[in-house]
Structures are given as structure tokens and as C-alpha cells.
């Protein structure tokens, strides 16, 4: 831990957000990555913080267009660690984070370009020795070296977790939607270039990457002894109609039937 950590703890909370170049799912144009933009939104919502955005990658027209999407959210500047195409950005990011360690490091859970393995936050957390939490939906409070966060569970449920800082948090698509990117702030924002040696990702260069083929849909296999049973199963309608219809029931009887079904399904709490 650096000597000035206590100072920054007493002062503003230091939050770093890792942002990447996204790609629109339909038009394939460069844009701000959705989950990274949600991470920026979460960080902007934290009061009394010192926020910085870090991007490691190329400095060209595509990345400028995407990064201006983040600048347009009201972020003054983005630290751009310039890397060559096909570089493994993990090494450069670790160096940059070691030089100025934040207390909270926010990132999306999966990139929209490249391998998209979602491994980078874990690599950073393991190398820096910080705890990591995935599926972040909201940050409730940060105080006394502990952050209380909400994790998104399936079906819109939430779980409260308390993590010791410094920590890495991966943002879930269930986090609040990012604010719109405005043109003026995007023009005024600045990219500050940082130099780090880039390390080529040799494994990635050796892999065969092709446009995605549609995955074959699994056929419903029917194990039946006779051809007749197989035919019946294949020709059967997906929905067997015939629900219960309560005609000419009093409202009380109808309500009771509905209540009983809801109770059986276990949705009433």
C-alpha cells in the first residue's frame, strides 16, 4: 500500500473505471461499451469521489469515436494507455494501477470486441491481490475501508455484499442504464496519453477467428420403442390446451381458486 493511501482515504474516494471500445450489435460501429458505460454511471453516482477513466488500446479514429461517448457523459478526461494492435493490455494496466492504485476499480464484465472472455478484471484482482465481486448492480455506501454493494441475482433479486477496499467490481447489465452522451462535453473532453510498453498477445494471434455461425438448435430427442410413438411425439402440439375454466362462479370462488394456484406456485410472500 503506498504511503499516501491514508491521505486519500480521509479525502475523496479514489475510483478508477476501466473503459473499452464497444461495438454496436447491429451496425458494428464503434460505440461506448454498454457495461462500461454502466460502470461510469455508477461511479458518477457516488458522491465525493475522485474518478478517473482508464483505457488501454489503440489511439485511432475508432477508439476516439468510442471514447468520446464516455467523455460525453460528463467526464473531463480519459487516461489513454497507448498499445499496439493485438497487445495484451493486462500488463500495461497492472503497471498503471500499481503506479496510482485506486480504492475502487470498476469494469464491465465482458468486452464487446476481441476475445471477450471477461478474464481481465480477475487477472487484475489476482495480480494486485484485491478481492473481486461480479454482477454488481449498485454501490450503496463506501465508508471506513469497506464498500457495501448490491449484487444482481436472477429474476431481479438482489444480494448485499460487504467488501474490503481496495476491490475490483464487475458491473452487471442489471446496473442502472447509463446517461445519454452529450455532444458538447464529448468535444471538450480530453484524452491524456500515457506511454507503457506493449506486450504482444501471442496466443490470441495463433487462434483462428471467424464470424460467428449460428449455433445448431438442439432437436427434441424422443426415445420410443415404436415408430408410432416417435411420430406421435414429433407431431404433438407444443401446447396442450384445456386449462380449468371457472364459468358462473361467484367472485369469491374465483378469487379463492386464483389464490390457491398462486399459493401452489409459491409466488405469494
Amino acid at each position, binding site marked *: 500500500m503506498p504511503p499516501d493511501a491514508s491521505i486519500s482515504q480521509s479525502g475523496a474516494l479514489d475510483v478508477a473505471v476501466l473503459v473499452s471500445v464497444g461495438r454496436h450489435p447491429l451496425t458494428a460501429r464503434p460505440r461506448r461499451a454498454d457495461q462500461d458505460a454502466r460502470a461510469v454511471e455508477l461511479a458518477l453516482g457516488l458522491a465525493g469521489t475522485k474518478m478517473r477513466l482508464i483505457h488501454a488500446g489503440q489511439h485511432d479514429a475508432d477508439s476516439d469515436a468510442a471514447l468520446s461517448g464516455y467523455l460525453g457523459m460528463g467526464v473531463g478526461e480519459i487516461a489513454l494507455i497507448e498499445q499496439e494492435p493485438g497487445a495484451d493490455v493486462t500488463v500495461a494496466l497492472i503497471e498503471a494501477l500499481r503506479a496510482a492504485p485506486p480504492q475502487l476499480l470498476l469494469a464491465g464484465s465482458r468486452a464487446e470486441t476481441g476475445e471477450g472472455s471477461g478474464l481481465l478484471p480477475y487477472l487484475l484482482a489476482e495480480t494486485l491481490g484485491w478481492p473481486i465481486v461480479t454482477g454488481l448492480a449498485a454501490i450503496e455506501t463506501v465508508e471506513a475501508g469497506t464498500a457495501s454493494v448490491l449484487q444482481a441475482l436472477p429474476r431481479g433479486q438482489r444480494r*448485499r455484499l460487504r*467488501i474490503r477496499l481496495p476491490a475490483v467490481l464487475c458491473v452487471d447489465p442489471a446496473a442502472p442504464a447509463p446517461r445519454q452522451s452529450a455532444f458538447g462535453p464529448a468535444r471538450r473532453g480530453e484524452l491524456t496519453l500515457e506511454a507503457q510498453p506493449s506486450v504482444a498477445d501471442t496466443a490470441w494471434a495463433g487462434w483462428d477467428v471467424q464470424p460467428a455461425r449460428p449455433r445448431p438448435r438442439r432437436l427434441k430427442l424422443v426415445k420410443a420403442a415404436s415408430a408410432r410413438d416417435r411420430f406421435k411425439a414429433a407431431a404433438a402440439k407444443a401446447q396442450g390446451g384445456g386449462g380449468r375454466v371457472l364459468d358462473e362462479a361467484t367472485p369469491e370462488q374465483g378469487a379463492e381458486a386464483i389464490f390457491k394456484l*398462486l399459493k401452489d406456485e409459491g409466488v405469494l410472500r
Partner: protein
Amino acid sequence: MSEIVRRDPRREWIMRNRLHPEHLEVLAESGGGSSPCEWPGPNGLMRRDPHAVGFIGPHGLRRIDRSGAQQAHAATSPGRPAEPAATRHHVEIESPAFLVAVAPDLPGGRLSSHDRDVLGLARQLADADPDNPGAVLAVVFGDHRESGFGEAGVDRLLHLSGDGFEGYAPEARLAALVAVEREFAPRHWLLPESTLGGGELGRRLAVRLGERPATHLWKIEASTEVAGGWLATLRGAAERVDIHRALPRLALALAECAEPVSEACHAARSVTLDQPLPERLTRIEDGGAVAVDPAGVALAEAEFILAGGNGVGDWDDFHRTAQALGASEGASRVAVDDGFMPRHRQVGASGTWVTARVYVAVGISGAIQHLQGIQRCETVIAINSDPGCEMVKRADLAVIGDAGEILAALVELTERTRHQPEENRDAA
């Protein structure tokens, strides 16, 4: 049922003797009831009378039913033993050449279909060489309610229980997996690619082991051209590209990556770790589930939806019901167009495709666009005044009547039962 064929010489004699007065009845009995065209002969051979095939139709013509209905009937007749039900053959791998470790998610304490697919993939890796079969080791955390590990293809079962693994405990689970790695040294690690289960644990394990995992794996093929003998196909770049690479030691597999085991039953012999797990200081503390306001849950992932349409008279009443039941609110297009509900609450083809487990449609007649939107709902309840509408046909339970009265009765019933336990407690 016993396999011995019981012979009745007298019946056989009657069947042979066409002039016997009981000949036809006995034939009909032995032939499966419907038509006396086939019967077991005295030597165990099936005898067939081609003239007796079929039946005489209403116009006096002979009809032959080739759909198999007669056959199917015959198969269940008491005279002949039914075909033995498809049984799984037992597989016991005593000394495996290698291990394939799998850490299933077990949502709700049971193997999910995703877990079964991943176990099927593990079997594919383990059984590739029939001379040197590998064994599938399943690492299971916490209490579970699954009894069919063998049917899913598990040879060795390592069950790690303890308070440390309950709730959200990725660090304790990671420490356990590292201990498994040290003790069993499996050749492959396979985990389901799920957001909060195997996907997270697998990535933690990968960085701990210093392995570059295959993430979002959806296919493996045996190939002699790549190192390791397996070519893996992964989805990368937010579903836009396919990456082909040699299968690494650790892989995170998507659902439907392989067929689940369906024909064999494996031993699922339980194994234990020799070394006790080290006590760890956890840096992530699980504060438990948080009560969520159902109105704030996104419609697409809500579990229980109360949707209103044109037939809702009093919308305040509708909102009160949704609050009392704890349901998320939805609406049909008409209700949204008329301004009773916001656009983001619209269910159907031009709104949200919902996945609720229980969907209550109040005063919605069921336009085809709306029914498309609720295709994936399991249970649908309709409250409608028109018994002939499409929603009533789709619903598992339909109540015909005035929506306002039924909702009022439902609210009253819910509140009464909610207060009842407290009264009982007071009385006791």
C-alpha cells in the same frame, strides 16, 4: 414380470381346431383383443392369419389400420410380457487413466440442464479413448437435494459441506478447488458458463492456476492437428465471432455444449479430500438477500406479473391488487395506448417478451401479439368477462366474471390470510 412363457395346451388345441365352438373367442383373446390375426403357436413361433387382419368397416369394406394402434394395444395386453423398459447400463470405472473435474452450479440444490450438458461434455472427454477411460469427478459445495449424479454421468463425487460454502462464498470455494487440483490433478476442468456460478468460479480458478481458459465454449471436436487432440470453438466479442483454438485445461462451457448422458448410469462413488481445507480470512461478506420492490423489477425478468388490459375498469384498484399480491405490473397495448400504463410496462410483440413463472391477465382478450409476448410463461391465469376469448383458451386457470369484483375479493383474501398467522400466534 417373469420371462417364462406359460403354455396352456387346451387353449392351443382350441386355437388349432377351427371347428371348436370357442375357437373365435380364444383367438381373439390371444391376439390382443382387437383382431385375432396373430397368436403364439405351439412351438413359440408367431402364427398369423392374413384373412383375419383388419376389421370390417361401416360400409362393409375391410379396413386395415396401419397406424399401429392395434400393435400398441397388443403390446400392453396381459397375454404377452411387455417390452422391458429402457434401462441404463451401469458403468463402473475402477482405475481411471485420468480425471475430468466438473464443478456444477446446482441452482436450488439440483443439477440444472446446463450442469447436465457440461457433464455430458466431460463424458465426451473422458470416454474418447475406450481403452483408457477417464473418470468424471464432480465437486459439489454445500447441501444439495440431487440424487441422480450417476445418471448425469458422474463417476466420482466430492461433496464439500460446511458453513463456509453457504451463500456467496467464492473465496472458500476457490480454495477448495485449488485443494482438489493439488490432490487429484485432473487433466481437464469444466465449469458451466453462468454469471454467478461456474463462470465466476472458473475465472477465479483460471487466474489462480495461471491457465488461459476457453470461455463461452460451445463445441469441441477431436482433432489430430492441434495440441491436446481437441479443437474448441468459443463465442467471443459479444456473440459476434467464433474462435477456434486447442482446448486448454480449463474450459467454461455454455448451455447445450454437448448432449447430456442418457444411456448409462455411472457409479458416483464418493471420494474425500485427504488434507483438511485451510481456514481462510474472507474479504467478501455476504449480507443476505435484499427485499426488492416488485414494481421496480424489469418486466423481462419479473417472476410474477399482473397485467391489465381493456377490461380493467378501475386502475387504482388494479395497482392496489398488484401491491397486495407483490406482483410486477404489466399491461396490454390498448391499456398503454390509452395512457393507463407507461410504455415500458407493455407486454407483447411490440413491448417486452416476458419470462414470468406466473402471469395473471386481467381483462386481456389475448391478441396474437400479446400471446407471443407471454409464450415463455409457465402458468397463465385469466380473469375475463368473455369465456370465448383467446386468453381463456391459453390460460391454465380462467375465471369468468367482472374483473373489478374478482380483484377486490382477491385482495381481501390475501390480506386476511396475511393477518391470520399473527392472530393465531396471539391466541396461542
